[in-house]
């Protein structure tokens, strides 16, 4: 029974709760126990909240018994990346500078999911301030990949990916600034969604690069991911960049099929940099999309090769401004100094890890007098070029398909000595954030080379999530991988 619950997925669990076959307390207890079982090996959690989870589950069971559930998913537990502020529950963003910080309010995402009746299992490990592609930049501990514990789960939402891949949570929330949901979803064999910029409120999410940051769901299936996104998407007066219109419905036409869709294959994304096994699986995926009735067309994104350069100027510039708030005054660490400048400089030197310091330095430099036009100014123009080229592509096709990550999960320590090599992990994902588009990672099986998951990325224009989910759902169903035993890492 327990294994059946753990691998069922949120939609199936909601059906079981509805029919009274199981209670939310039983479901929540099963995930709490599984989380505890795998956490020692995987390093997924920074904070377990079993009491809150069970209290939430009991309340959900009460509502269902009274015939008044808070919604379809009332009583299905969830876990959050530790970048979402949670009222009364410690939140660190994976940094020592926020050790012991207890938020006085919750992020809108947390508030809406709580209102929908989702008990919180805990807060998940991540790269410090979401800066990283391997989860080795957590100030507390690295996260390990359930498929091979000598390998990274990807980052920065590594904990959010690893815990769902190991069935310690049915679904989870992460954030994606340059690929931080899609890349770990790819490396862990999950569905991960980077929604259109502005679709999900950023209120209460600890800021990294505000014009790129976007929260999104991890789940084992496309339908579950679309459902979790539905619970939190939509306008929020507390985030001035949230899109004011009501969000589209992601589930109504999810099974509408792919027939007649035009899908563009970016020729620049299929080059030498990809692992042969990744190439094989992704090319098979293109064939499958065609078999399902889509028209495949080659498209070109010539400015793609400048995406990483532009991203690693824009994101650090915004990060250097956002992280100025960690000054030892209002919250977090303080290291004493004779005057305020020494106090602040010592606090920041001790509280931030190496990657965060590197990006603050890079961003401060890119914004400093004499260099602004050459670096930040130019990067913003490259951003325009990439967005424009994608717009031109969307005049010919509905969606764009490409690999999510050029490699499968790499070994811990493999890229830590070379920041640039680590940055190149994001080569296929950053353009989507720069342009504010939507994208999803859908598993396409495991690589014939190493048996590790490979992911297909489907990119959609802003607010075209319904179409994106439809294509992903059709692909997932036809492949049938996620419901097979093979999709369950033997941990």
């Amino acid at each position, binding site marked *: 029974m327990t294994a059946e619950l753990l691998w069922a997925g949120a939609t199936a669990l909601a059906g079981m709760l509805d029919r009274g076959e199981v209670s939310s307390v039983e479901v929540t207890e099963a995930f709490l126990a599984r989380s505890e079982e795998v956490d020692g090996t995987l390093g997924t959690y920074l904070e377990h909240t079993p009491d809150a989870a069970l209290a939430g589950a009991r309340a959900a069971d009460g509502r269902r018994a009274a015939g008044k559930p808070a919604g379809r998913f009332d009583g299905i537990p969830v876990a959050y990346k530790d970048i979402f502020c949670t009222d009364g529950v410690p939140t660190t963003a994976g940094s020592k500078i926020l050790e012991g910080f207890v938020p006085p309010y919750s992020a809108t995402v947390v508030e809406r999911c709580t209102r929908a009746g989702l008990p919180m299992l805990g807060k998940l490990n991540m790269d410090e301030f979401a800066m990283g592609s391997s989860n080795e930049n957590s100030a507390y501990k690295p996260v390990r990949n359930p498929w091979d514990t000598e390998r990274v789960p990807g980052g920065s939402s590594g904990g959010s990916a690893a815990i769902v891949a190991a069935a310690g949570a049915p679904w989870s929330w992460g954030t994606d600034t340059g690929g931080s949901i899609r890349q770990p979803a790819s490396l862990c064999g999950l569905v991960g969604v980077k929604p259109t910029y502005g679709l999900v409120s950023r209120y209460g999410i600890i800021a990294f690069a505000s014009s790129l940051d976007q929260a999104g769901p991890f789940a084992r299936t496309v339908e579950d991911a679309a459902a979790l996104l539905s619970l939190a998407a939509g306008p929020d007066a507390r985030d001035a960049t949230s899109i004011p219109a009501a969000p589209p419905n992601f589930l109504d036409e999810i099974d509408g099929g792919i027939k007649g869709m035009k899908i563009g294959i970016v020729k620049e994304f299929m080059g030498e940099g990809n692992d042969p096994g990744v190439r094989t699986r992704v090319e098979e995926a293109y064939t499958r999309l065609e078999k399902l009735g889509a028209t495949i067309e080659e498209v070109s994104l010539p400015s793609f090769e400048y995406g990483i350069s532009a991203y690693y100027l824009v994101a650090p510039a915004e990060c250097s401004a956002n992280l100025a708030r960690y000054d030892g005054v209002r919250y977090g660490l303080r290291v004493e100094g004779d005057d305020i400048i020494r106090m602040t400089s010592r606090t*920041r030197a001790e509280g931030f890890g190496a990657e965060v310091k590197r990006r603050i330095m890079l961003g401060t430099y890119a914004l400093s007098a004499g260099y602004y036009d050459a670096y930040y100014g130019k990067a913003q123009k490259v951003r*325009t070029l990439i967005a424009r080229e994608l717009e031109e592509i969307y005049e010919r096709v509905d969606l764009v398909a490409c690999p999510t990550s050029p490699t499968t999960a790499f070994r811990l320590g493999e890229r830590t000595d070379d920041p640039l090599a680590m940055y190149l992990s994001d080569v296929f994902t950053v353009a989507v954030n720069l342009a504010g588009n939507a994208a999803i990672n859908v598993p396409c099986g495991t690589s014939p080379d190493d048996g590790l998951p490979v992911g297909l990325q489907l990119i959609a224009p802003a607010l075209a999530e319904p179409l994106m989910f439809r294509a992903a759902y059709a692909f997932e169903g036809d492949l049938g991988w996620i419901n097979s035993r093979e999709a369950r890492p033997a941990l």
Partner: protein
Amino acid sequence: MGSLDRKTVDHVARLARLDLSEGEREKMRLELNNILEHAEKIQALDLDGVAPMAHSVPLVNRMRADGVAPSLPQEKALQNAPEVEDGRFRVPRIIEDEG
């Protein structure tokens, strides 16, 4: 553009309020140069007439009604402060004593 020298690293660290150690400064110089070298790629692009993009959503100055709503109580706003005095954040001296 030229490469980042040690003097610039010191200057930027001061602007960023980061009291870096000797070792960190030298390592930072090497790593930043490596990253900036990659970023040099975009210097070769002809970007004349291309408008810079700060944001992907075309929203400008969203207004809301200027109404009174509950805000964070003082006690909660101060609950995470390293040092508090008389309901305020306490910081080290900012202005030197005169004379």
